[in-house]
């Protein structure tokens, strides 16, 4: 940054700020709306700040008798899915990028190919399979099919392709088994990739609606998006509840993103101090 002249820097920060406004305003608008009564949201006047500030929307949502249960279900499912994905996608991505084995190209192609098939046509077959296993209305029905994800196997493969060969060779000479190499050498160096994956997998699982709406029908087993969906009336949209609910969905993801961002930042300051 130091090489940039003052006016160049000013323009840079101006652009950064303008774009930040574009991303921030809708979010703040939704946040503000979550503190408004429905009458104010649907009234024609446009006020950025709530005129009749209310906590009623949040109160209504939190006082759903099953709210905590839904939250717990969502946390259990999203956390397990994220941890399993981190391990299994990375293993598969690593194998596809670095190991030589018979049929490797075929498997990579297959993983790309399954991504191309829209979920809408596989939903009913998937439902029938889960039913055969007796996994409807269960955590395993939500977790096991989602424990690997072709998208992120593909992502990890692309990350591992540039991985320095020398480290692996050194590890082999030191007598590490391939899994030990992967676990002790490769994974720690792939922290930024794992971080990105963790954030995006968690977000996907947290927001997932298509599968749970079909396979979970016991209200006790609902995830948050499913439970809070009941606020969407058939004829009337309760925007106040929808906004409050969307804030409740969003904040955990934002928290996790902010938390994991340390890993991005850490190495930046490290390299920055070096340069």
């Amino acid at each position: 940054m130091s090489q940039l002249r003052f006016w160049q820097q000013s323009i840079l920060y101006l652009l950064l700020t303008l774009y930040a406004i574009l991303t921030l305003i809708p979010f703040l608008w939704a946040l503000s709306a979550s503190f408004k009564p429905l009458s104010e949201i649907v009234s024609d006047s446009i006020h950025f700040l709530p005129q009749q500030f209310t906590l009623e929307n949040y109160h209504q949502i939190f006082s759903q008798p099953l709210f905590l249960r839904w939250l717990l279900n969502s946390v259990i499912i999203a956390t397990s899915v994220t941890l399993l994905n981190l391990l299994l996608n990375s293993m598969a991505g690593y194998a596809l990028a670095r190991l030589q084995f018979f049929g490797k190209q075929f498997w990579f192609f297959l993983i790309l190919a399954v991504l191309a098939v829209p979920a809408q046509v596989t939903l009913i077959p998937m439902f029938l399979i889960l039913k055969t296993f007796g996994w409807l209305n269960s955590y395993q029905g939500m977790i096991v099919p989602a424990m690997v994800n072709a998208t992120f196997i593909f992502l990890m493969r692309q990350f591992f392709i540039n991985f320095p060969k020398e480290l692996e060779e050194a590890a082999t000479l030191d007598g590490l088994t391939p899994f030990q190499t992967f676990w002790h050498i490769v994974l720690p160096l792939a922290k930024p990739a794992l971080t990105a994956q963790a954030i995006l997998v968690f977000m996907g699982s947290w927001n997932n609606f298509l599968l749970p709406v079909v396979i979970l029908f016991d209200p006790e087993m609902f995830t948050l998006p499913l439970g809070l969906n009941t606020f969407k009336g058939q004829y009337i949209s309760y925007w106040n509840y929808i906004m409050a609910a969307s804030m409740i969905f969003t904040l955990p993801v934002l928290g996790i993103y902010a938390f994991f961002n340390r890993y991005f930042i850490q190495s930046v300051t490290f390299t920055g101090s070096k340069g």
Partner: protein
Amino acid sequence: MDVIKTRLIGDAAPDVFFLDALEAPFLMENNVLEPLNSYITPDFDLADIEETLLRPFTLQNQIFGIPKDYSTLALFYNKQAFVDAGLDHPPVTWDELLVDAKQLTLDRNQNGRIDRYGLGMIPELARQAYLIRSFGGQVVDKQGYATFASDAGLVGLESLVTQYRDDRTSARPIDVGANSGIEMFGQGKAAMAIEGNWAIPFFQDTFPNLEYGTAEVPRMNNQPGTMVYTVAYVMNRQSQHKSEAWELMAYLTGKTGMEQWTRSGLALPTRKSVAETLQYDHDPLRSALVAGVSYAMPWQVGNYPAAVMNQFNNQFISVMLGEQSLQPAMLRAQEQANQQIKAAE
């Protein structure tokens, strides 16, 4: 609803569930619902239930569902706007509506942008199907094929299009930045709207100062007409506990259960006796809705409603926007819908 179909395929549907009249024909035809005739006792007093509402759940004299509640459409009008325009009563005929709408359309600061339209309208088949019938047209024939593009069917629709395009006295919610017809009416951006029972609690909660009245939907071609949307309890044919299932249904749709369910006014009772007990036929806001049930067209369009509905809506909006004229657009929609239905059968 889509979810119920998936669960029925997987034999994982509940014993009793509720079913929209629109989706009923397909499920009745496909033998997934239990016929209820043998369960219904004289005690249950089936005759007390509105005939118009029972018919959508009946196929070849077999009753597959007991309607639990319903809503018709009625004309909602803004009393203040009517007073300001010097109108002392809501329109009774469609011609009156068109004239009144002109008076009610308002551009307060003369900037060429209209601040209040005479009528808020939703250009979807679900809301407008009754107009197709007013000059003798039909939305679908007995086999469920689309027939809405007949000359008789188009007259009523043409009137909607002309009002929107030429008179410019009606508008869609999205034209004015509203998310729904009731929101548009509540915000005062339309002086009239044709909406259902759901509007009443909505206005009470969100626009408590709104002064409005309801009237029966204006007659077109001197024919009374409106839509009725109804939902019934049905029994899964695969149910293992059929007598218990019926007991539950009989309670929920019986006189005591229904009275409790519909007392809050969120939904209208399908039993005449309950409507009388709750005095909805004398209620100043609900009597127009209740009156409509006898002549209303149940919202039901054959075995493949999605094909008919999607094709109609897709093309009708395009007509409203002035991209095509009504007849060719509707003929295309009808043909496309029928191709889809034919392939599905």
